[in-house]
C-alpha cells in the first residue's frame, strides 16, 4: 500500500544525498534514517519531511512529534490513497 510513498522517500533522499555529494546504499523498509548506514544528519531528515509535506500535502506531524526510525515506518505515516504530484501513479 505504501509502495509509492516508499518510492517518493527514496527519490527525495537520493536528491538530498546527491546535494551533499553522497550516494545512498540500497534502501529497504527497515533502513534506519539516523544511526544506520545512511549518510544523512538530522537537518537532512528535517529537509526530507518538509519536502514530503510539499509533495503529498500531508503533515503527519501536525499534532507534534511522532516516533519513527525506519523508511517503512515513515512511509506508513502517510495516507496511501493520495496521488503524489510529480510522481507517476503506480510507480514503485
Amino acid at each position, binding site marked *: 500500500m505504501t509502495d509509492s510513498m516508499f518510492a517518493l522517500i527514496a527519490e527525495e533522499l537520493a536528491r538530498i544525498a546527491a546535494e551533499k555529494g553522497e550516494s545512498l546504499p540500497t534502501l529497504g523498509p527497515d533502513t534506519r*534514517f*539516523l544511526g544506520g548506514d545512511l549518510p544523512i544528519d538530522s537537518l537532512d531528515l*528535517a529537509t526530507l519531511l518538509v519536502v514530503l509535506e510539499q509533495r503529498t500535502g500531508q503533515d503527519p506531524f501536525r499534532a507534534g512529534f511522532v516516533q519513527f526510525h525506519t523508511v517503512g515506518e515513515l512511509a506508513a505515516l502517510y495516507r496511501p490513497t493520495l496521488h503524489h504530484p510529480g510522481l507517476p501513479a503506480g510507480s514503485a
Partner: protein
Amino acid sequence: MSQPPPSWLHPGLRLIEAERCVGWAGIAAQADAFEAAFRASGGRVVLPPQGVPALVAALVAAERAGVELHLSRRAMPADAASEPGEPGFAVLLETSGTTGTPKLVRHDFQRLRGRLRGAADPDARWLLAYEPAAFAGLQVILTALVAGATLVSAPGAGAADLARLAVAHAVTHISATPSFWRAFLLALDGAAPPLAAITLGGEVADQPLLDRLAERFPTAKLRHIYASTEAGSLFAVGDGKAGFPAAWLDGGVDGVGLRVRDGVLEVNSPRAMLGLQIGREVGHGGGWLSTGDIVERRGDRALFAGRLDGRINVGGVKVSPEVVEQILLDVPGVRDALVEAAANPVTGHILTALVVPAPGVEETALRAAIRAAVADLPPAARPRLVTMTGSIALGAAGKKTRKGTA
C-alpha cells in the same frame, strides 16, 4: 608529583572520549605541560578544539597561570593573535552568530561555577551533547567535574552516534536541545540508556516531545530550561508541561522577576550580568531586560510564541531569514528572493528559499552559485530547499510575506 586538583574538580571524575578514559592523573599531566606554556604567553591563550580532556587540563592550567583562556570553536581562529586582555583567570567563549565573525564573551570563572549545584555525584554518567566550547557545553563539563562524575563525549559526532554512546556507556544524565532529543529518540533502537535526568534547553520545548520523553523514560527527572542570550539561564520548569506557570509572571521564580510588555517577555535577574562581551557590556545590570521572546498567556500557562526579531530556531541555532535573504539577493542572476521557515518535527524549523531568476539565467548554474554563496554559513542557516519561481507575492503592505516566523 603534580599539584592537587582545584576545588571545582572532584578527583574521582572520569572523561571518556574516543574509547579513551582519562582520570585526574592524566589531566594533571597535561595541565602541567599547558601551565608552562600559558605562563610564557603573557595574558591570553587561545585553545583550538582538542576534545574535552585537553579543555579541562587547559582550565586547570589557566587558573594556575592566571591567564584568560579563549576556548575557540574553530580550528584556526582568525583573531588568534594573542591580545593582552585583562589580567587574571577568565574564560572567553565565542557566541554562535549566523553571520559575521563570532563575538567573544568574557566569563568570570567563579561566576560560571557559582551557577552550578555543587553536590558530589560520582555515580552520574553524563553525555556531552553540546559543543565543548559553547556556553551550554561548558556548563555540562563543569557540572560533571564538580560532581566527580563520568563524562562521555565525542566532539563533532551527530545525535545518532551520541545515542549509541549513551547506550554503550549506560548514560544517566543528558542536557541537550529539543532538536537533539528528537533526533536522539529517532536514533534509539530497542535499547535505551538508563536516564535519571533529562534537561532540555536552547529552544522551545514542545508538549509532544516532553510527553514522548516522559513515556520513554518514565523514571527520569524531566526539566526544560529557559535562558536568554543576555541573561543566561533564568529558570527551569520541571512539571513536564510546555511553557511555564503564568503565575510566575506575577510573583517571579527563583529570584528572577518576569513580566510581559507588548507581548514580549522581560526579566529582572540578579544573574543578568553574566559576561562582558569584549568591547561592550552585555545586559544593563539591574532593571528589566527584554528577552525578545514573544509570550502568550493560555489559561494558567505562559507559552513561547516565537521571536520579536523574526529569528528562527533551527535545531538550537538562531538564524535570521532576513540576513540569509540578503545574501541570496547579492548572488548574480537572482532577481528576487524570499527566505522563510518551514516547520518540521526534527529540527523545529529549516530555512527554505523562493528564488526568482533573472531572464536568461540557467537554473543549474544559478543553483550552484547559490550553494557557493551560502557555503560559509553554519549548516543550520543555509536554505535547505531552493525553489525557482516566476514571482514572489507581496502582502497588503507591499512587503514580502514571510511565513512560519512563529
